Each structure stands twice: as structure tokens, then as C-alpha cells.
């Protein structure tokens, strides 16, 4: 049987238990506070410490893709241990991560690496990574796994209700959010990430309105094969959202995930989100 390892980048918020169960390899991306560069690996930068620093915002905060060399290291090790590597990354439309993976694959064994631009992040990417890992464990061939992932890609939806436009505007990765600053302070964007593109669903002036809009969006995509709740350092909100959606996932508890700092830079604290893999057919 072909031994397959699954690899991804740290914008994948799949909880540790799953990463460990399937021995999924994660390459950290980077958060910069001014000229200080910290790996988004949960060690150099913990979520709690990060959000504290982000909100103090005396510094210019940015993010970057990992160096090719670092992807190369993780990939080489995986290739030494397995016959084939399936790598899923954050959207190439939003980040250079996919390209660093591509360059690394070219320098290792291109025919033994299947690289997929997931078009999504956080638990959107998480669900795809899990799908690949489960299929690999079940003994599917790399080609069969890749086919399943590609069929699942259009069924992945990520929505988020952010507390403020400010971080999205500063991030510069989303063109339309750049000019969004002005007179009104209380404007909460409700956004959608689909196929690598971040679009505006609507805006709300109150968090209650933002919350109910998010709930409506998740419900509109039912039935779900997978559903996860995300928050940016806002566990109470995440809990409340999971409660409000509990009936959509009657048999399993909905995972609540505190999004990783590299995403937190672009969305800011106190945001809520959901990642859905819609049921097929």
C-alpha cells in the first residue's frame, strides 16, 4: 500500500487532536511585529499573547509566507517517511504560501507530491485536510484522494462577522476593504471566503445583527457534511454561536476553534465565523 502523508500550512486551524491522529505535517507561516518575525507555530506565538499584542497595536503587524527552505525541510522529511505527500495550502489568490509549496515540490520529488490550492483557510482548509487524511488512512490512492478533494472544493464555505473593519482594511489583502474607514466607527463587516476570494456579504452596526446574519448564512447552506465555529479570541461568542447552530449538527459536537494569529492579524479580535462543507448532491 502506498503510504501517504498530508501536509498543510498554519492557516489550517484543524484542532491538534486530528493533526496528531493522522500525523499531519504543518509548516508555520509568519507574523511580523515591526522587524520581529515570529513563527505561527503555537510555540513562538501563542494565541493569547498574540491578541494581547495585536490590540495594543503600537506596532505595524503583518504576515508572510514561510521561506521555501522551511517548506522544503518539512516536505523532504515527509517524503523520506512516505511514498507520497498530499499538500493543501491557503488560497494562492490571497497569499504566497501556495507558491512556496510549489517551489519546494519542484525541488524535491514533483511526481510524489500532489499540491492543491484549497482556496480557503482556517477550518475551511481544516475540513479538506481532514478529508485527505481520512482517505489516506483508509488506503485510497493519491489520485483518488485528489479527485475527492477537488470535488469537495466548491462545497466549502467560510463566513465571518468581524467586530471592526479596521484590521481587514490595514491588511491590504482585500482590495475593497481599503477605503472602508470613515465617520462611523461601529461598522461590522460580514464577509465570505469562497474560491480564494473575500467578498462582502453585508455590514451591520450591532453585534446582535451581525450574529444573526452569520447564523442565517450557515443555515442557508444546510445540510452540512461538516460544520465548525471559529472565533478570534472570543470564546464566549464562539460558544454562543455553536449553541445557536447546535440543531444543525445533532449527532456531533460542533468544534470551536480560536483562529490562528496569522489569520487574526487580518480579521482582528472579537470576530466570529463558521466553516462549512456542504453535503454533496
Amino acid at each position, binding site marked *: 500500500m502506498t503510504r501517504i502523508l498530508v501536509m498543510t500550512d498554519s492557516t489550517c486551524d484543524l484542532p491538534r487532536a486530528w493533526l496528531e491522529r493522522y500525523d499531519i505535517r504543518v509548516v508555520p507561516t*509568519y507574523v*511580523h*511585529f*515591526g*522587524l520581529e*518575525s515570529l513563527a505561527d507555530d503555537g510555540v513562538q506565538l501563542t494565541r493569547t499573547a498574540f491578541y494581547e499584542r495585536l490590540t495594543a497595536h*503600537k*506596532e*505595524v503587524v*503583518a*504576515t*508572510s*509566507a514561510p*521561506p*521555501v*527552505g*522551511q517548506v*522544503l525541510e518539512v516536505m523532504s522529511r515527509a517524503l523520506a517517511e512516505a511514498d507520497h505527500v498530499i499538500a493543501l495550502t491557503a488560497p*494562492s489568490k*490571497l*497569499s*504566497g504560501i*501556495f*507558491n*512556496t509549496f*510549489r*517551489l519546494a515540490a519542484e525541488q524535491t520529488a514533483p511526481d510524489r507530491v500532489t499540491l492543491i490550492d484549497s482556496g480557503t483557510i482556517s477550518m475551511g482548509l481544516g475540513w479538506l485536510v481532514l478529508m485527505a487524511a481520512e482517505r489516506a488512512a483508509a488506503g485510497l490512492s493519491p489520485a483518488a484522494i485528489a479527485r475527492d478533494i477537488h470535488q469537495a472544493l466548491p462545497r466549502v464555505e467560510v463566513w465571518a462577522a468581524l467586530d471592526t473593519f*479596521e484590521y481587514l482594511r*490595514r*491588511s*491590504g*489583502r482585500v*482590495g475593497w476593504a*481599503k*477605503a*472602508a*474607514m*470613515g*465617520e*462611523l*466607527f*461601529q*461598522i461590522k463587516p460580514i464577509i465570505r471566503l469562497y474560491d480564494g476570494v473575500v467578498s*462582502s456579504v*453585508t*455590514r*451591520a*452596526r*450591532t*453585534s*446582535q*445583527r451581525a450574529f444573526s446574519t452569520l447564523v442565517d448564512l450557515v443555515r442557508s447552506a444546510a445540510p452540512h457534511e461538516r460544520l465548525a465555529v471559529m472565533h478570534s479570541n472570543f470564546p464566549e461568542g464562539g460558544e454562543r454561536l455553536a449553541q445557536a447552530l447546535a440543531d444543525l449538527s445533532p449527532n456531533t459536537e460542533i468544534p470551536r476553534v480560536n483562529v490562528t494569529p496569522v489569520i487574526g492579524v487580518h480579521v482582528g479580535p472579537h470576530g466570529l465565523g463558521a466553516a462549512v462543507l456542504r453535503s454533496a448532491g
Partner: protein
Amino acid sequence: MADHSSSPSETPACNGLTLWRLAQAGRDWLDQHHALVNQLNVFPVPDGDTGTNMLMTMRNAIREVEESGATEHVGQVAARIAHGAMMGSRGNSGTILSQLWQGFAHALKEQKILTPELLAKALREASDTAYRGVIKPVEGTILTVAREAAEAAEEALRDTQDMVEILRRTVLRAKDALARTPEMLPILQKAGVVDSGGSGLVYILEGMLLYLQGQAIQVKEATLAEARDLAETLAPEDELGYGYDVQFILKGENLDVNAIRAAIDSMGWSTLVVGNEQAIKVHVHVHDPGIPLSYGVSLGTLSDIVVENMQEQYQEYVRERASAPSPMPGAPPSLAEIPPIELDEDDIAVVSVASGDGLARVFRQLGAAQLVMGGQTNNPSTQEILDAIQRAATRKVIVLPNNKNIILAAEQAARLATDQQVVVVPTRTMPQGISAMLPYDPKGDLDTVVKAMFQAKDRVVTGEITTATRSVELNGVKVTEGQIIGLIDGSLAVAGDEISQVLREVLERMCSGECELITLYYGNGIDEADARQVSEELSAAYPDQEFEVVYGGQAHYHYIVSAE
């Protein structure tokens, strides 16, 4: 083999040590300008930190050589640089830079000496490798600059063997290519900048040239100030406070820049140490300014000493920030300063009526393409609204009258605009209009957007506080001319003698139960300080609600209030 003190410009060919020095000079020159490069960032280049990413990549590349100690063969040194860049690259620009070094090193493989021919060949391979390094190469970027630099080196080789001259022409062409990047990439033209990654590459090449020409990299005060970005000025706070900003120029003999940089770096943070064996510019943030100064004196003579207390600077900054216009309330930007939304012919435009300059800004911020000034006492004409619809120049237009007396004129104008598909969302108050703007999506389907805006307009309750122009009794409220009256969603609700009292009573009726956010738009007759005072008093009575105070600039209405 060249030693440290020989003038590099007299060396016809370079060995590994020279390449190392060249790369260091490139790094230092970029170091001084990285903040400028950061400022050049425009979408779709993600993040505002191309300069930082390239600098980090260069720093790692040089560190790799320093750690390996291999300085004899250019091939070896280039390979170390390439490896260091690859392991330490950051971001897209850093990745491309590492690819450039990758190609550069490949061309020099097994070579001991860098000849003019090899330089041209290495620049060419650098460019080729970088082009392969991106999924879809785009002209008008660092790639163009790298390619044209290589071309210039090849052309120069035809009539000279002088390394300095070849590099000089390479830099000239690289700068020229950089200057032309806006012609190749419309987004740069629009943003009024040149490509940031290309600019970073020019600084690296230029630093190398300066070294070959035997010029010390002098740090001008202005450049240094520019290079110090926000992160540096606002250095991390610790239990010892912000400390001091120390700068000086150290003059001496055979100064070792790297050793001095390492020593200074160990004393504090935000270190910047550049220069040559005779003169070094030092910039560092420390808690005790005596330490770097004593260290400097032990090595040579000091001049241009500057010591600044950053605690004071920080407090100054905090004061400035507190009075900053945006996003803090205060002197808001003028309407002209808020860029209007950019729309294609097929998009949906919004034409909105606004009764004050502050409200106009709010509508523009939310995406209204055209504004028609007017309100309670100066209703705009059908013609004015029609003109605005036509100025919008999109096929689909939504009109927000934002006043019950303007709805008919808006509908009339909509019928007259026969070349466009125009829908009026009959908003009766300014807050209703603002609420309707929230789900506005210029790229959406017209029916869907109109439906969403219709629903949104009713999610807000409006209060209006004005002065009665005549005596009347309405809805059981008795009003004397000159009294202050409060309306809720257009109906007379309260009368009284004081603005703040009427406002309080109006809010009491508006904000029952579910309300989360109260926004006060104060009129052109109200002082900002008064408005804030009123808001503070009210917020004491409504601890669970958030208050926002916004300049509306409307005439006659002291306050327009929304609760949602």
C-alpha cells in the same frame, strides 16, 4: 587575494570575500530604505511590508555566510547566500529575492573569481530563475527590474570589462525599469507609486555599486528618520519604560562594522549600524544611553550625538493620537478627502440625499456614489436628483431620499431617467438611509440588493430634535413656538424647553428592550464638546448601550438620533 583594506574599485575581478562585502552593502543600503519600500505597497501586493520582507531575507542570507565562514570562492559564497535567502525568505518579495540569489549562485557554481562575464551570466540566470519562481510572471514588477538589469549587464559587456562600469549601467537600467513599472501595471499608476519589490532590488544593486565605487554608505539624517518606522518609534514598553533613542557617528581606524553592530545590538533594540572602516553611523534604543556612548568612545571619536527621551516622545504621540482626526472623532476629513466608490457601468450606484456635510461623508463612506444636498427645509428638486442619477453613469441606480418629503421627487426623477434602471428605496429619515446602505453591494443583483436595503431601512428607530416654528397640539403633545420638540420616526412625541431634556425623553421612548447602539448625529448649530457632554450624560443612564457621536452638520435639527 584581496584583503580588507584594498580599494575594491581597483580590483579587476572579485573573489568570495568581495561578493560577501557586496551583498552586505546591498543589505545595508536596503536596510536604510526599507521603510520607504514598505510605503510603496499597493494592492494586490499583500501586506504593507515588502521592504521588511526583503530586508529579512537579505539579513538571513548574509548571516548564513558569516556562520559558514567560507569566503574564498565566489561560488561558495554565492551558494551560502542563496541557501540563507531560501531558508530565511519572507513573503512574496522575499521568495522572489531568494530565487534571484538561487539563479545567481547557480551561474557561479565551481567558480573562484567573479569576472565581468560571469556577473552578466549570473544576473541573467538570476532573472530567469525568478521568472520561473512565480506562477504567473507579471511585468512591471521586481521581475522586470531584474531582467532589464541583466540585459544592461550583457550590453555593457560589449564595450567594457570594468566591473564598476558594468554594475553602474546595470543600476542605471534597473532604476529606469523601476520608473517605468507604473506604465506596465495600471494598479501602480492608479496608486501613484513604483513597484515596491523592484524598488527593493534597486536598493540592493545600488548598495553593491556604492561599495564597488569605494563609497561609504552614509546615512543622511532625513533617510534615517524615514527609515525609522512606527514600530521603531513606538518600541515595546517594558518595566523600564521606553528608554532613550541614541544616535551618533563613530570615527576611527579599521572599524569592524559587523562586530560593532553585534555589540550595539546586544545593548538595546531597534539597532541600525551602518558605515565603513573609518566612519559608522549608530542608532539604537536603550534604557541607559551611557552604555553605547562609552562603548563608542572606547573605539574612536564621536560626533553628531543625539539622545532623545522616548518616554516623552511616546507621551507626545499619545497626545497627538488623542486629538487625531480619524478614526477618533474630532475634525473629520472633508468630503473631498473620502475617495468616491469606483464603479463599472454594470454596477449598481447609490444616489443619496444628505442634509448636512457630516451626513454626506457618512453616506460616501458607506458607498454612495452621488450625493444630493438637501433636507427638511431645502428639499432638492426632481431635476437635481435626476442630474445625480445621470452623473452616476451606471445602468442601475438606487435612490435614497432619506426624507418623507423627498420621496415623491425621487420617484419622479426615477421615471425621467429612461436610459437607466432606477429604483427608489423610500427611506424617510437619514438614519433609515444609513441603515439601508449597510447591505449595499454594487456588484449584486438589483432586485436582491433592493430587497435587502428595504429590509435594512426598518431596522433602525429615528429620533429628531428640533425647535418648533409654531404652536400646535399634535398626538396629545402641546407645543409652543420656540420650544424644543422631539420626533420619533416622524411623529411628534415630546416637547420641552431644553435640548438635553427632550433628547433624554425621546431616547427613553425609542430605546426599549433590544436596542444595542445609539448614534447621535449633531447638527451644525451644536458644539462638538456639547454633543460629547450630552452623550456622556446619556450613556450613564444607558450602561448596556453603546454610544457613538458623529458630526451630521444638518441645519435646524440639533440632533438626529438612531437606535438599533
